[in-house]
């Protein structure tokens, strides 16, 4: 299967561990992943104002690039990019007038945007087009004994029309982790917001959020937390020290992208995990289970 891949800005700097492990794991599954040519920032957030058409342009130009790439599927791993691309696509599919305004604005493009391209999150692609049974058959290094809390945050599961799974009780990541041989733990705060961009203007909010979310994962016996969003990962990993100032008893709990655990289980070398990018020591739980 030929996959057109949208990495997103942060996967090219802070989250190269997400980028590298995505490509390595997908390649291991026999997928032909090609990064989209001339992609641009998706805008990161979907404007909620009814007349906010200008902020649809950035995601839509990416969809035009994807259409031109002509692959079997168009996929991204970043939860925020996924949401922005998917919701812009849905909005224009449902609003012919807005669609015509957008195409008029983008008149210098060689390709008209028609809304006939599907935006997939990598987790959807794995679940619906590959299947977790198929994936499990490719596992070379089962993550036996590894207790994983799956954190969805907001944008994989909300809003409902752009969700990859149930908004209150998603399970796609737990199913993936089980297919890799890991043990998903109960995690009541798995869809609770991490505070997102408030880390820029009001980092005290993030300390409180991180304390709550990571404290819940730890109290349910998790060795680590997996996620799909570089902003969540920044807040829950890089800012974990701030949370520990609020609560000195908060045990260090490493954060991974789901693709890193996939790459590990599928037999990729340690170098694609880019463990040097992590702030909270990621090695301890993996070493303890004999995975490194």
């Amino acid at each position, binding site marked *: 299967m030929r996959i057109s891949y949208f990495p997103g800005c942060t996967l090219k700097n802070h989250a190269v561990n997400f980028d590298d492990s995505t490509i390595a794991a997908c390649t291991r599954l026999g997928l032909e992943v090609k990064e989209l040519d001339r992609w641009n*920032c998706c805008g990161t957030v979907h404007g909620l104002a009814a007349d906010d058409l200008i902020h649809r342009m950035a995601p839509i130009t990416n969809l035009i690039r994807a259409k031109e790439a002509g692959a079997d599927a168009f996929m991204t791993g970043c939860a925020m990019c996924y949401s922005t691309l998917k919701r812009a696509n849905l909005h224009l599919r449902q609003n012919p007038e807005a669609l015509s305004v957008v195409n008029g604005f983008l008149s210098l493009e060689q390709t008209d945007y028609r809304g006939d391209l599907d935006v997939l999150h990598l987790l959807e692609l794995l679940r619906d087009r590959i299947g977790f049974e198929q994936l499990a058959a490719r596992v070379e290094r089962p993550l036996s004994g590894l207790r994983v809390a799956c954190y969805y945050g907001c944008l994989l599961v909300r809003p409902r029309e752009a969700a990859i799974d149930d908004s209150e009780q998603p399970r796609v990541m737990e199913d993936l982790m089980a297919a890799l041989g890991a043990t998903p733990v109960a995690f009541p705060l798995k869809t609770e*917001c991490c505070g*997102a961009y408030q880390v820029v203007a009001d980092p005290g909010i993030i300390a409180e959020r991180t304390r709550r979310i990571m404290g819940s994962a730890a109290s349910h016996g998790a060795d680590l937390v997996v996620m799909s969003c570089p902003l969540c990962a920044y807040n829950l990993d890089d800012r974990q020290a701030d949370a520990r100032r609020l609560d000195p008893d908060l045990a260090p709990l490493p954060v991974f992208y789901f693709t890193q655990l996939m790459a590990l289980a599928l037999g990729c070398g340690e170098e694609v995990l880019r463990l040097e990018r992590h702030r909270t020591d990621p090695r301890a739980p993996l070493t303890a289970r004999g995975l490194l």
Partner: protein
Amino acid sequence: MSVPVRIYPERSRRGFVDQVEALSGQRLLACYQCGNCSAGCPMADHMELLPHQIIRLAQLGLGETLCGSRAIWACVSCLTCNGRCPKGVRIAEVIEAVREVVLRTNRRDDRLEVSALPAERLASLPPIALISAMRKLTS
């Protein structure tokens, strides 16, 4: 102590209601104040006005109170409220509409000045954080 509020006759208040309804695409009076949005809001600890109170003030056209509140900037559009509202009101869209009312004036009343951030902190923040913060907090 009770505070009497007149809802309809004042044109300025109705103007705010119309603006918020147009920007949000929501009918404010659909909300019957059950409080489900506030009960599940992850930012409630950081708001002096809870989401259902924001809707109530918007229904009443109390734009000045809303536009001057801290709560509208604390909301990050996580959309938990939207998913749980029994009346299908998109609370996050209403709060975004109030932010837009503030940001679309010619006062450039931004809630974030990126150039004022310490260089070290600016360098440590990922682009995904900076871009989303600027999109939500600046005009």
